[in-house]
């Protein structure tokens, strides 16, 4: 009875540990291949376009609405103790440290991890990955390395863009709905924002980009056969990337701001 209960408890734990180990090994293999030739520059360029450029609209829209809502919330909260003037600085700090990288990362996870997993998963079930091997091409190097590298490089740029758009969203709401003076709002934003507020967000962005692409590639390459297999791989890629982004965000915040 007790052994059965312990077994039922231990089995999923062991499975989870084994899965974490497989993902870690996969990520280590990708990292090991990044600096070793051959380099697939065309695939890297194409991935930068797909992951970076085409994610700009969704990241920008997320940022502008979040910045606006944040301004309204901080104003409402600040008014309870006559601190309405903190709106510009809190919007800027909140966007650059937390909301820019986290929401940007989650939106990119939804858009990119799913797309990578579905594409590579379909390649697997249609034997395109086997075909790569027979053509003397390492699938990990050809498919995963350019995507992981592109996501890691593109995410900080997306986060920086999202930060700027989010702050502008707060400014727009501030001057149109909350009666802030435009120049004073911008001065407040610049005066209270420190370089590390922005830098920490960019580092988080790079880590989240790495997570998104690794999870997309890992689940795609381990997709089961058939449409259901590809669907399951896509879902697993988005869920695992999102959860890992949130977990990594907490760890990075601890490291950056509490030590």
């Amino acid at each position, binding site marked *: 009875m007790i052994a059965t209960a312990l077994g039922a408890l231990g089995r999923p734990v062991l499975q989870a540990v084994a899965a974490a180990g497989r993902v870690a090994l996969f990520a280590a293999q990708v990292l090991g291949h990044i600096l070793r030739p051959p380099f697939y520059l065309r695939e890297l360029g194409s991935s930068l376009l797909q992951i970076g450029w085409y994610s700009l609209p969704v990241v920008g829209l997320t940022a502008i609405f979040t910045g606006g809502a944040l301004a309204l919330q901080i104003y409402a909260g600040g008014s309870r103790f006559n601190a309405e003037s903190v709106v510009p600085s809190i919007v800027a700090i909140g966007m650059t440290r937390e909301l820019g990288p986290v929401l940007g990362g989650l939106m990119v996870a939804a858009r990119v991890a799913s797309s990578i997993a579905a594409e590579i998963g379909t390649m697997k079930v249609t*034997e*395109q990955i086997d075909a790569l091997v*027979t*053509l*003397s*091409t390492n699938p990990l190097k050809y498919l995963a390395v350019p995507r992981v590298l592109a996501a890691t490089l593109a995410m900080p740029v997306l986060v920086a863009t999202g930060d700027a758009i989010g702050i502008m969203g707060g400014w727009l709401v501030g001057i149109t709905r909350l009666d802030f003076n435009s120049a004073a709002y911008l001065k407040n934003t610049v005066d209270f924002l420190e370089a590390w507020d922005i830098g920490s967000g960019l580092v988080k962005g790079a880590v989240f980009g790495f997570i998104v692409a690794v999870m997309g590639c890992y689940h795609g390459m381990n997709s089961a056969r058939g449409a259901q297999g590809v669907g399951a791989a896509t879902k697993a890629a988005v869920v695992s990337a999102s959860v890992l982004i949130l977990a990594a965000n907490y760890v990075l915040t601890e490291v950056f701001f509490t030590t």
Partner: protein
Amino acid sequence: MIALADVQKRFGENRVLQGVNLQIASGTSMVIIGGSGTGKSVLLKCILGLVRPDQGTITLDGQDVTKADRDAFLARFGMLFQGGALFDSLKVWENVAFRLVRGPKALPKDRAREIAIEKLRRVGLKPETADLFPAELSGGMQKRVGLARAIAAEPEIIFFDEPTTGLDPIMAGVINALIREIVTEMGATAMTITHDMSSVRAIADNVAMLHGGVIRWTGPVTELDATPDPYVQQFIHGRADGPIESVR
């Protein structure tokens, strides 16, 4: 020569290959026949190193394939996949020239494109198809592009996995004839897996029947009809009654 000795492979409780022994002489065309799910594709993937056998040895010209330099080993092979396995994101000519523009002996892009167009012409496709994407082609055309890719680097050994599956009888005949012509013309060693008897008669020099995880019968294609083996007879005549269970 490709030689397989006691090759075994299992997936969980399913023992797919239970001791395969087979020899394919250089410059000959061997066709492996057998029902669906008998392990033909697994056998082919074992030779290519896509699946690692649990037991047994596979040698190519006396060298163990699992210990050979992978790139040098694979450079000797060409492969036509069942579904074509063309890369969706690349144009037709880029698919055909995939191996030519990569690796230590990479050719300049223009030269690789010329060769790709020449190979496309060889399989009966017009140069205009070179700049199309695979999704714009019919099933038969995709098979031809796959064939052009398999022969692009002029390999010594070519594998064909169910080359006529999903094609109408006329297109299947065209593909069979092309395979036979190309294999003869190149002097390549060919291994084909199929359950299409018209392919067997058009392509094979020798035939081996895989059943129950072992090679049940092997011999020249000219002796296929005359063999008294009941498994072979049931298979080649497509009979429901016989030693092979119709529901597997």
